[in-house]
């Protein structure tokens, strides 16, 4: 399509004229990389709470999640299924959709778990909710990060159902946002969603109102 490439050339030429650029591309690139590496990055890279054991981190994450109006529960690694069962009973649910890769040890008897791989929006809309794991959780901001990976699945899964139960292991929790990025770096091209509380809007009189288009109910099970 000649017209499109014409606009491409026009924009790039206009930028180069404005910036007064004369360098050869190869040399320019080496300079750019060096310049980028030398930018000031004096902000906090690693938190301080984890050094005192995981308790500080867990508490911070719990506080932040509760502030967003999410439910927070704890379980030992061998007690995940039992805890999931209790949470579901408390919510009055009979079962949940799950992505591929959810370990059988997470799933209590007496509830129905449906592998929702390839489900479309209508099918997911008809479920009672979804159970997933996560890639990393950020204590400082109360965020859980999901990627398209085992036990997390496609983005639609944690979006269309009205209820989301997320299992977070202590080792997945970091304190600061930059620590999360250090962990996500290797998989940065995967579809990724940062979730901080149930869906909400501040569009009416600037107050956070829970429950617009994403799940209106979010529970987090911390495995310690």
């Amino acid at each position: 399509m000649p017209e499109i490439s014409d606009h491409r050339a026009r924009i790039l030429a206009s930028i180069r004229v404005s910036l007064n650029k004369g360098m050869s591309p190869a040399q320019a690139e080496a300079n750019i990389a060096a310049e980028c590496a030398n930018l000031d990055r004096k902000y906090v890279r690693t938190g301080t709470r984890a050094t005192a054991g995981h308790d500080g981190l867990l508490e911070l994450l719990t506080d932040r999640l509760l502030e967003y109006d999410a439910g927070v529960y704890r379980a030992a690694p061998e007690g995940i299924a039992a805890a999931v069962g209790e949470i579901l009973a408390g919510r009055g649910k009979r079962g949940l959709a799950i992505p591929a890769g959810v370990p059988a040890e997470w799933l209590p008897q007496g509830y129905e778990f449906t592998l929702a791989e390839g489900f479309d929006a209508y099918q997911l809309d008809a479920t009672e909710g979804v159970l997933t794991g996560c890639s990393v959780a950020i204590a400082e901001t109360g965020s859980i990060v999901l990627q398209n990976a085992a036990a997390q699945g496609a983005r639609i899964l944690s979006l269309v159902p009205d209820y989301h139960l997320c299992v977070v292991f202590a080792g997945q929790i970091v304190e600061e946002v930059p620590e999360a990025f250090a962990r996500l770096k290797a998989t940065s091209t995967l579809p990724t969603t940062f979730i901080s509380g149930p869906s909400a809007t501040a569009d009416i009189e600037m107050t956070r109102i829970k429950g617009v288009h994403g799940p209106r109910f979010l529970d987090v099970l911390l495995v310690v």
Partner: protein
Amino acid sequence: MTATETHASQWHTRDFPEAARDLLQDSQTRKNVQHATNVIQGKRNKVVAELPDWEELRESGAQVKAHVLRHLDHYLTQFEENCTRAGGHVHWAADAAEANRIILGLVQQHEAKEVIKIKTMTSEEIGLNRELEAHGIRPIETDLAELIIQMGKDRPSHFVAPALHVNRAQVRAMFQREMHLPELGEEPEDLATAARIYLREKYLRIKVAISGGNFLIADTGGLCIVESEGNGRMCLTLPDVLISLVGIEKVIPSFEDLEIFLQTLPRSATGERMNPYNSTWCGVHPGDGPKEFHVVLLDNGRSPILADREARQTLQCIRCAACLNACPVYHQTGGHAYESVYAGPIGAILTPQLHSMEEGRSLPYASSLCGACYQVCPVKINIPEVLIHLRGKVVQEDQATLMGKFSLWNIGMQAAAFLFKDASRLAMAERIGRVGQKALVSKNGFIEWMPLMLSGWTQTRDLKAMPEQSFRDWWAKEKAPGAKPADRSDHA
């Protein structure tokens, strides 16, 4: 009519002072704006104060953005290469007409009669909705505030919370009417639920979505969108085709740079530690999200701004709207007075530049230069500095025209320059002024109206009358060597 023409005729029909005067009469809107901006400001200040490294984050954000602008050609082509490799299609649009043509073409190619949209200021900038409607395609806004704007046939007044000038009771009345829900309750939750039900069916059914983008990520070819409600995620995930329209200045070098902006943007924009949802994705991922992904890179007046070294920083903006919330002028007038897509302090410097200083020329004056905008800006754009720089440009350009040269404003300024250059000339002028002003001073000691070109000054301010004695006169009489000081209480 081309898109650019429609765009121009919708906005900028009046100058700022004229538009502001009407809006200042509308006390409900003012109350809504003041309430909302006070709430966000309070929340913002609290969560910003929590971070010990806020200033370092601002500095890094500013440096990363400035670096990108110095090498914008490099980062755009890197983005293009990586996005294409990930299965995305990259389009370039030098102006609004081209962007509209590309998007319309894609929508028509998929024979879509309806499209769902995520809030995007760039689409407002190019007048996309009108262009789609003119071709029989119905754009459906999915952001709650945008839905409110669309239903009320209103215009956005703030780019984080576009309907901030509308209150809860007004929203309820509108939903009752437009969604045919006479029984609708008045709790905010009721309104959110009504929007959820109204839109859900559309998400599930409509096959083409249009979004903006907060960041283009050069090293992965990905995009990042920051939102609250989940409407963004719906549009990014459910349809078969996704078209993202993004300004060329939105590119950042790497995925990890988000660690800066995902800390500063939510805190500045909505006063939250993190907004409910951030999405990043690259091109097309089989089995997850749209089967076809297009990015339209929009220039539309941005690249020439790079040539102006002082004003270039305007393009660092991450559209958090903190400068709007902090601005005493915005606080009084709301966003509509700017008659421009981008309101507030950033709008005052961005709008005239996007139009090569041909439109929005009164906007650089829509500021008291108090500096609050600079203080809150998470990428350290020195808005007051750019405002003064642009005022200088407006004046220089005016002087360059024959009309401008002989305008009263210019003659007045030249006269002022002549007077201020020499102390005795100034003293003489002051004496003449004190006599001359007598007819203008009101009972309260202020001058509320001045003749001819001076009326521009008193249109927005009342002027303190000149004192009987000037400081220079007083100094000469009291303090200068050989002077005979009078009773001190005179000047206490």
